C-alpha cells in the first residue's frame, strides 16, 4: 500500500543498477500495493472483466467498482494530474486503472480503506462531482496535507491513508500509461545507444523506463 521511505530511497537510488535491482524497484513499487492479505478467488474472476474494461476505458464498471465510481475516480485522478500542455489522468483512464488495482491487487483491509475514502469523497460537502475544479483542488490539497501528516507518523502496520492510496495509484497509473509514458514523458522502446552524460535543460522530461 504505502510505499515506505525505505523503498522510496532504495527505489530512487539508481535507475539502472543491475537487472535484478531494476526489477525489484518496479516490484517494490507495485508489490507495495499488494503485500499481505488473503487471496480472493472472486477478485481473480472479476479481474478478467476488469482488465478488459480498464484497458479500453469508456466508462463501464471495472472490477468491483460501478461506472459511477470509476467516473468519480477519474475526476479525482484528473485533479491530482490534470491536463496541462499534455493530457491529464482522465484521458489516460486512470480511474479504471485504480479500480482494477484495488480489485485485483489490494488486500481486503486496504480495499476497505480505499472504499471508505471514496465514500467520504462522494458525500463530503455536497459531493466531489458537484464541486468546481477550484473546489476539488482545494479539497485534495487539504487531503494531501492530511495524508502526508498521517503517513509520516503512522506505524508500519497501521493502515494507509486513503488519499495516499489514491495519489500513489494515480501517479503509477498515469506515468505508466501510454499518454503519461510517451506524451508527458519521453519513450524510446529501443534507444540504440547509451550516452552516459548529456546536457539537460529545465523542462525537459524524463526518459520512460521499459520493463
Amino acid at each position, binding site marked *: 500500500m504505502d510505499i515506505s*521511505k525505505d523503498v522510496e*530511497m*532504495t527505489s*530512487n*537510488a*539508481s*535507475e*539502472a*543498477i*543491475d*537487472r*535484478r*535491482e*531494476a526489477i*525489484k524497484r*518496479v*516490484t517494490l513499487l*507495485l*508489490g507495495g500495493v499488494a503485500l499481505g492479505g488473503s487471496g480472493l478467488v472472486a477478485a481473480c474472476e472479476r*479481474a478478467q472483466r476488469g482488465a478488459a474494461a*480498464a484497458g479500453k476505458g469508456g466508462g463501464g464498471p471495472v472490477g468491483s467498482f460501478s461506472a459511477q465510481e470509476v467516473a468519480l475516480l477519474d475526476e479525482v485522478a484528473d*485533479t*491530482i*494530474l*490534470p491536463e496541462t*500542455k*499534455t493530457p491529464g489522468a482522465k484521458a489516460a483512464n486512470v480511474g479504471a486503472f485504480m479500480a*482494477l488495482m484495488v480489485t*485485483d491487487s*489490494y*488486500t481486503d483491509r486496504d480495499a476497505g480503506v480505499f472504499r471508505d475514502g471514496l465514500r467520504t469523497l462522494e458525500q463530503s460537502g455536497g459531493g466531489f462531482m458537484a464541486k468546481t475544479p477550484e473546489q476539488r*483542488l482545494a479539497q*485534495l*490539497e487539504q487531503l*494531501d496535507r492530511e495524508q502526508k501528516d498521517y*503517513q509520516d507518523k503512522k506505524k508500519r502496520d497501521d493502515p494507509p491513508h486513503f488519499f495516499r492510496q489514491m*495519489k500513489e495509484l494515480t*501517479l503509477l*497509473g*498515469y*506515468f*505508466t*500509461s*501510454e499518454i*503519461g509514458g510517451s506524451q508527458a514523458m519521453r519513450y524510446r*522502446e529501443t*534507444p540504440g*545507444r*547509451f*550516452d*552516459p*552524460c*548529456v*546536457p539537460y*535543460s529545465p*523542462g525537459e522530461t524524463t*526518459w520512460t*523506463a*521499459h*520493463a
Partner: protein
Amino acid sequence: MQSQSFDAIVVGSGISGGWAAKELTEKGLRVLLLERGKNIEHVKDYVNATKAPWDYPHRGGRTQAMERDYPVLKRDYPLNEKNLDWWASDKDSPYTEHKRFDWYRGYHVGGRSLMWGRQSYRWSDFDFEANARDGSAIDWPIRYADIQPWYDYVERFAGIAGSREGLAQLPDGEFQPAMPLNCGEELIAGRLKTKFGGRRLIIPGRVANLTQPLPGRSPCQYRNACWLGCPFGSYFSTQSSTLPAAVATGRLTLKPFAIVTEILYDRDKKRATGVRVLDAVTETTTDYTARVIFVCASALNSTWLLLRSATDVWPGGLGSSSGELGHNLMDHHFRAGASGTLEEPGLDAKYFYGRRPTGFYIPRYRNLHGDKRQYLRGFGYQGGASRQGWSRGVAELGVGGGFKDAMAQPGKWTIGATAFGEMLPNHANRITLDREKKDKWGLPVLAIDCATGENERLMRTDMMNDMAEMLEASGVKQVRTYDNGYWPGMGIHEMGTARMGRDPKRSVLNAHNQVWDAPNVFVTDGACMVSASCVNPSLTYMALTARAADFAVAELKRNNL
C-alpha cells in the same frame, strides 16, 4: 524411432548445461540435452520483449491471485506480471523449508540464463585459497591458474563488457569495451579513489551484454529489458549463445519436458550407464544410455538427482559415500547498503540517454592487503546513480498541474549500492529428500535446512556502514543506510551440496568435477562449489563446465571413462 543411445547426456539446459552441450557437441560427441520444462525458442517466444509498460493491465505488478499461486515467488521481485511464465510453479514443484529458504527457479529451456542478472566476475586466488587460509570446510582442489585459460575461453564466446583494472582480487578478463559510468557515478568514482587512496574503487559493472557484435548477436540496444528475452541476442543466454552453437554441429538432440528421475548406475563397472526420464506431459518413462553424463540441473536439483541415484549401492545416493552430499549449501547474502543524493551545482544540467543494463561495481576490499576485520571474507557492491523519476511524487506533498509537470521531469541525482557478501560453507546447511511430500509428478521433494551465521551477521554491519562512509566521504548528501533483511536463497546464487575436493572421503567431486564414485558423471553447476566468494558465480560455472567437458572428452579418448 528416436535413438535412445548417445555419447553424452546433459541434464539441464541453463548456463552450465548449455555450455556442456556446446562443448561436447563441438568436440564430436552426439549429445542428448534434457530439460525438465518447456521449450522457449530464441526471439520467437520472447512474447513480451517489445511490449510497453502500458501493455500490461497491472503495469507489471502483482495481484492477490498471483500471490496465492506463488507463495514462495511472492517473497521478492520475481513475482511480476511481465515474465511470470518463466518462473517455476511453486504449486507444481513445492519443497520443504525447515528454515525459510527462498528458491526461485526457471524450469524451461535456457533455465535462469534467460532471467539472470548477467553480472560476470572472475574469482581470484583470494577465493580459491580462502578455505585453506582460514580453515573453513575443505580446500579447493584447483587454483586460479587452473581455471584462468577457461575464463579467457568462455568470456570471448559469451561476450563480457568490462574495464581492465589490474586488481588482484578481481582479475581482468577478455573484455569487450565497458558500459561506461554515467556523470553522477563518474564524479563519485573520482572522489572515492582519492579519498581511499585507490583501495576502494567504483568501476563499471562487468556484464554479459555485448558492446561489440558476435556471430549471430548484435550489440546491446540499451533497452534494459533483458529479463523478457532479448530480440537482438545481446545478452548471453543458452538461447542466444550456446544452444545455437550446439545445434550447428548437427550432433545435438534437445528434449524438453524430460524430467530426469535417476542416474542409472552399474555397480560392477562402477560407471553410470544412462538416465531414467519421466516425460512431464505423458508421464511415461524412458531410459537413455550414454558414455558420459553431465549433471547441470542447477545446484539443488543436481544434488536432488544424485540423492535419488544408485541407492542400491549407497542408500544416501550417488556421491554420498563422502557424507557430504547435500551439505554445505551457500548463497550470497545481500540487501544491505546505503544511498543518498548528489547535490552538486551543475549536475542538474546533466542527464543520460539510453537504459544501460548494468551499473557500477565496488570490488571487495575487506580482509585484503592487510585489512583485518572481526569476520572472515568480504563483500562487493553493486549500485548505480540516476535521476529520480515520478515515483518520488508519492511521498512528496503536491497535487495539480504544476505537480504533474514537475513529476514528468527528472528529479535529483541519487546514488546507492547494495553489498553482496560471502556466505561461509557450513556442513549443517543442507538439503535432503522429503519422502513425505511429493511434487506434481509424484516425486519426493527437497527439504532445505539452511541459515546464515555469526560471520554473516558481523559482515552485514560493515556492508551497511561502509557504503555510507564512502558516500559521505565523496560528498553525497542525505546518506542513509538500510538492511532490508536477507534469507538464504534470495541471492539466487545457490552453491554447494556436491562440493569438489581432493579427498573422496570429504568431497563429492574431484578437481575435474567427476563424481568420485562414478567417474563418467560430471557435476559442473553451482552444486560443485567449495566456497562462495562474494562475486556473482555464473561465469565460474561456465569456465568450470568448459574445462570439465574438455577433460571428459580427453578421458573418453583415453578410454578412461
